[in-house]
């Protein structure tokens, strides 16, 4: 296990392996996304209650799932960077924050657009939407804290602490918001479709969830590569890389 761990700690290795992964993962992801979107938009039947507006589910649910998972990826990377002082974990954590924020934004926006035809309002202070909003704030907090530090190594550590604090708090926030909403709930609004989703609707959804996970990985790797270069700009391997990549 340790040799692999050490390899992950080596920037040039990570840079080249991530490049190799991206070369096939990115096309596959794009194909999966396009297939899933076309399948969900054009080839699935309309939902009984919501009609065609439910088709937003094919981006809303995957974005929400991946946004939440992304926070845990970020916090775990932060923990690794704090405990084992692994610089590459730092890079991964920093790279995850803006990507996670983008996915959270998508989940929020599509949720709002979905809410208008379904509930007749753009925004409901529903437990899930509210905690998604909090998640966006947490992501933005990490991004803002990172940008505020001049010393990027300190920035990485500080963000790692913050993301761990956030990870402890996410379940608490979610539970308390959930409880708060059930206390104040006036008209009962429930997400439909999830409990009794038809398999013809389910398969494209699963495909989209997988594709979004893959896309998150791609974005994470792309961000890490950019960050790696910047951090390692004075090292020999980056110099060599420049000769190779820029001359061409």
């Amino acid at each position, binding site marked *: 296990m340790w040799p692999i761990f050490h390899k992950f700690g080596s920037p040039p290795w990570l840079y080249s392996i991530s490049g190799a992964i991206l070369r096939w993962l990115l096309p596959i992801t794009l194909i999966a996304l396009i297939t899933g979107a076309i399948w969900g938009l054009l080839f699935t039947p309309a939902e009984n209650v919501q009609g065609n507006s439910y088709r937003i589910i094919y981006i809303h649910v995957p974005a929400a799932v991946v946004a939440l998972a992304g926070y845990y990826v970020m916090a775990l990377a932060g923990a690794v960077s704090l405990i084992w002082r692994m610089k590459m974990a730092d890079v991964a954590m920093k790279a995850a924050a803006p990507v996670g924020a983008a996915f959270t934004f998508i989940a929020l926006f599509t949720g709002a657009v979905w809410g208008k035809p379904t509930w007749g309002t753009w925004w409901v202070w529903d437990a899930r939407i509210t905690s998604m909003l909090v998640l966006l704030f947490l992501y933005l907090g990490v991004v803002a804290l990172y940008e505020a530090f001049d*010393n990027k*190594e300190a920035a990485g550590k500080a963000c790692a602490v913050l993301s761990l604090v956030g990870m402890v708090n996410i379940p608490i926030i979610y539970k308390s918001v959930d409880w708060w909403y059930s206390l104040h709930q006036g008209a009962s609004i429930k997400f439909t479709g999830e409990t009794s989703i038809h398999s013809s609707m389910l398969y494209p959804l699963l495909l989209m969830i997988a594709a979004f996970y893959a896309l998150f990985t791609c974005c994470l790797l792309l961000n890490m590569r950019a960050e790696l270069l910047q951090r390692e700009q004075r090292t020999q391997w980056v110099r060599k890389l420049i000769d190779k990549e820029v001359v061409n």
Partner: protein
Amino acid sequence: MSADSAGAPVLAARSLCLERGGRELFHDLSFDICAGQLWQIEGANGAGKTSLLRILCGLSRYGFDGQVERHVPLLYLGHQSALKALLTPRENLAFHVSGDSRYEDEKIESALSRVGLYGYEDVASHTLSAGQHRRVNLARLLLSDAPLWLLDEPFTAIDKAGVEELEALLVSQVAAGGSVVMTSHQTLNVDCDVRFLNLTTGLVA
């Protein structure tokens, strides 16, 4: 007193490397600081003297390579005086945050009068001058029984008499078997061996 007779090191630096802003400040720096030694770290501005001292005392924990082993309690005086303007010198010493034991009142009084702050014990520190702030910190040196002192530019803002006093303090600390590591541009006028660590040339002498 020589290094050979001094026994086990109180502080050991092992292959320290530090890079700041793309420039290597020092590379593969190893040395042992033993009891009864006085070390002066030299170097041009920006040579990394303060950075090295912060690494040695443990305030810098990452961003450098190498290990530091600390074997004894230490006392660190940085650029900042760590004095609260709203507290009097007496309170500043009595409530000091560095975790020393609580000093008795008489001890604080005698220390303050020894550093020339007799009569200033109970005025708010913000009325004191920068040099007097440094002198309160000298009183900390008098009170402390830490075997290792790490002093960052201790002579700044101190008048001639104060410099002599501080030099006498350093000598007595070394004579009592303690050790001192300090950064300074000044030539020390002390009658004990001074070891030099020049960060610009990388020489240990």
